[in-house]
């Protein structure tokens, strides 16, 4: 019998035929089809046992048509004759009912650099393998008198985009992500891992970090709110970058005057450099965006200076420049998005980030971060799963989680030391992945 757990993705040739057929049959002036297929599974655990365990095969076919300057978009999650006719008709119907306006230009054929983001092991990952991973974490946690919670997921997918200008692009990718919170009677720890290849994720390794953190974070005592020097672990830095991307790194945010980015101006400390690079193999690379435009590296903040923002076809067209390959699926009034962000590592060994701090706070990660003031880049949130007091250069004891309200640019203006290593993260609350170092920040404000 066929192994039902090997990802069963549709053959590229069939996808190409489907796209060609759809483009051929469209009566629109311009037509684009975006196809996205996923075969994914996720095993969830709580209280040292698996309590939810799911898998799905799904497909999305999104069609954009432009006729007489009118645009229509429709989608369906089937790939058969009836679906093709239905989705095309609905897109054309919507277009016909619209007032004419300048359409968002479709991508034109151009070379793109293929990138490898595929792993056979991830595509073939079985529920038994995921259960073994979970068991490794739960056994260690139970052995330490603790309880483990978390999830491990594996996914194989493909994306194809074709349009009536002759573009046909196709990419297959896999992703494996594991995360865990381990709790004791009076505190918790957190760790996560992400990779293209599931065999790079080790339950023992994840367990070691999260259990160590949970053990050290028991019986936390409160300290006075106020402004402290802090060390942010990669989990917190990654989330901060995702919020910076959401608020400021998009050309649309700049065009609508709601971004904190003032190009050419110094916004952070000189040791801060942030960029987006969808082609970097140390991230989760993808060769093109959801509009079929090849991805380009964009330097966002370079040595503290705002140097660029990301563009999609609409925002690029408005400024008469090419897209940087950061478009989301049409129709997208929310603008482009930096989905593959990197922050440059510094020169300080991670273990030495606390040195020189007289009285400060170590933050493992943030929780429930929300925007307070977009233009001032102010966010609020809680610390979670491992907040520690630093005294005379050493972590001395766990402290109660606190609420922070802080400008991200002000925090990065006080980036005093940056770790010499980076970590890949794909399990944040926002889109995309980040590869970032841990860092030390001079002033971070806690309100309660």
């Amino acid at each position, binding site marked *: 019998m066929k192994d*039902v*757990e090997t990802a069963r993705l549709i053959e590229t040739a069939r996808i190409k035929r489907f796209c060609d057929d759809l483009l051929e049959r469209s009566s629109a002036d311009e037509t684009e089809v975006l196809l996205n297929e996923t075969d*994914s*599974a996720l*095993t*969830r*655990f*709580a*209280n040292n*046992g*698996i*309590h*939810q*365990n*799911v*898998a*799905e095969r*799904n*497909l999305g076919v999104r069609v954009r048509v432009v006729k007489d300057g009118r645009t229509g*978009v*429709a*989608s*369906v*999650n*089937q790939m058969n004759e009836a679906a093709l006719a239905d*989705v095309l008709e*609905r897109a054309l119907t*919507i277009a016909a*009912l*619209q*007032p004419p306006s300048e359409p968002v230009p479709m991508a034109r054929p151009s070379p793109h650099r293929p990138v490898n983001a595929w792993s056979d092991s991830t595509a073939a990952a*079985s*529920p*038994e393998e995921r259960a073994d991973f979970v*068991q490794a974490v739960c056994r260690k946690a139970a052995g330490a008198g603790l*309880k483990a*919670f*978390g*999830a491990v*997921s594996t996914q194989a997918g493909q994306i194809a985009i074709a349009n009536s200008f002759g573009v046909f692009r196709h990419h297959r990718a896999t992703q494996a992500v594991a995360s*865990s919170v381990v*709790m004791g009677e009076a505190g918790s720890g957190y760790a996560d891992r992400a990779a293209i290849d599931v065999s790079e994720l080790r339950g023992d390794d994840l367990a070691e970090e999260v259990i160590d953190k949970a053990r050290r974070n028991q019986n936390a005592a409160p300290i006075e709110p106020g402004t402290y020097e802090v060390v942010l672990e990669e989990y917190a830095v990654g989330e901060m970058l995702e919020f910076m991307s959401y608020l400021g790194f998009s050309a649309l945010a700049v065009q*609508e005057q*709601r971004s904190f980015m003032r190009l050419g101006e110094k916004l952070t400390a000189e040791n801060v450099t942030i960029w987006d690079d969808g082609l970097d193999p140390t991230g989760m690379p993808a060769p093109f965006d959801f509009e079929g435009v090849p991805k380009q590296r964009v330097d966002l903040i370079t040595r503290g200076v705002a140097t660029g923002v990301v563009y999609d076809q609409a925002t690029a067209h408005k400024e008469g420049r090419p897209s940087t390959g950061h478009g989301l699926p049409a129709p997208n*009034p929310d603008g482009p998005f930096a989905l593959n962000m990197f922050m440059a590592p510094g020169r300080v060994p991670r273990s030495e980030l606390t040195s020189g701090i007289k009285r400060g706070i170590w933050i493992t990660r943030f*929780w*429930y971060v*929300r925007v*307070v*003031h*977009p*233009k001032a880049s102010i966010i*609020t949130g*809680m610390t979670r799963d491992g907040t520690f007091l630093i005294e005379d250069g050493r972590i001395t004891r766990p402290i109660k*989680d606190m*609420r922070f*309200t802080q*400008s991200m640019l002000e925090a990065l203006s006080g980036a005093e030391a940056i770790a010499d290593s980076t970590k890949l993260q794909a399990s944040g609350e926002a889109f995309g992945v980040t590869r970032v170092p841990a860092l030390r920040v001079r002033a971070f404000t806690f*309100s*309660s």
Partner: protein
Amino acid sequence: MKDLAEAALNAAQVKGAAYADVRVSHRVQQNLVVKNGELAAVQDDANEGFGVRVLVDGAWGFAGSARLEQAEVPEVVERAVRIARASARVHAEPVDLGDPVRSTGSYRTPLVRDPFQVPLSEKVELLLRADRAMGAVKGITVREGQMEFIRDRKLFASTEGALTEQELVESGAAIDATATTQDDVQNRSYPNSFGRQQGQAGFEYVEAMQLERHAGRIAEEAVALLSAPQCPSGTMTVILDASQVGLQIHESCGHPTELDRVFGMEAAYAGTSFMTTDKLQRLRYGSEHVSIIADALSPAGLGTFAWDDEGVPAQRTHLIKEGLFVGYLTSRETARRIGQASNGTMRADGWNRIPLIRMTNVNLEPGQTPLEQMVAEVKDGVYMETNRSWSIDDKRLNFQFGTQLAYEIKDGKRGRMLKNATYAGITPEFWNSCDAVGPQSEWKLWGLVNCGKGQPPQLAHVAHGAAPARFRNVRVGIMK
């Protein structure tokens, strides 16, 4: 749909499932966005598939597929069963669902105008009229209006004999005006922010909002906020408008009374709850003015249905009764663990997700004090309206909310407009400081379309009935 469901249930039993259910769904959704005088986006999505949930060796397995065809059934069932067996290898305790659920029947959302029969041009024109009204106000830099319509046809069947069919229809809309300067961004939304106001109803629900009538006002308010003084910091009386009370209920009562959170089933992601089982019938959650009911029967609510996604009939359950914590939102599995039967709150975000405990319509019962009287009784305080930001810790205790608009209250009168207002607190302290809730005439059901939970992530559409409410000794304005 029924044939496929029957085939899946048979296959699951043959493969050794002690219990199985199948959900088949077909969802269509239309979204419109008008931005700065132009139709920025219209999309029309259709999504269908089926999901099979099985209990084997006391453990859960689930698999779903978009391929809605008989030939796909054996493979999906096989996958679900194999997953359940893998779960059983690392399972703490066998799942006990309690008594069987054998609901049968069908239900449709009552509506006047089917939103999918309303011409697109009528919808666009309604948004464009509101857009023009906002555009007439000098100083507005971004104007946006949006609508969403959903029709979800779903079938639920189980090996216990349940078979239900439901057709749920939603209609929603909102407008938003943004004003900016070099250093500031202020915006105002109507009827609500972060998504839109939405309900289970037809197009009449959107028409009743009268977007155009409110467009000029919110645009003027957004511009005025740019030059408004900063909300002061301090401990004072706060009056919240009904929509903000709705969000306060959502974050600080709805989520912590989800029994799966209490048992740690969401600990690694959405978090846990301070409302542990030892506090049931003991915790003085709020003042005597605070009674909160989970009501899956509220007309036009986003949390309204006839049966949940385990086939359990819709119910009304007190969570808080005159301040006392008296109930949870439960599922079959979790209710059993506290010796109860499910109160019917399990919902899945489509065929490809398992049902989770979700809020239904979690409503604060109306009180007796009109807003005008609440204001008149305040010497020194702030009135806050429409959510701008929200954040709360993983146990749902320590929160901070910000609103788009605020007014100072001095000597019983509404005074200056204030910007960047925030308030913070600890959940039971805050609700115990509630000394007035608005009357039925000021009570409204607020639809919330962005409630996230679960891994893989699921979005639920829920609702909160609320009236304006007053809270004493609240920490206000911590922003620099």
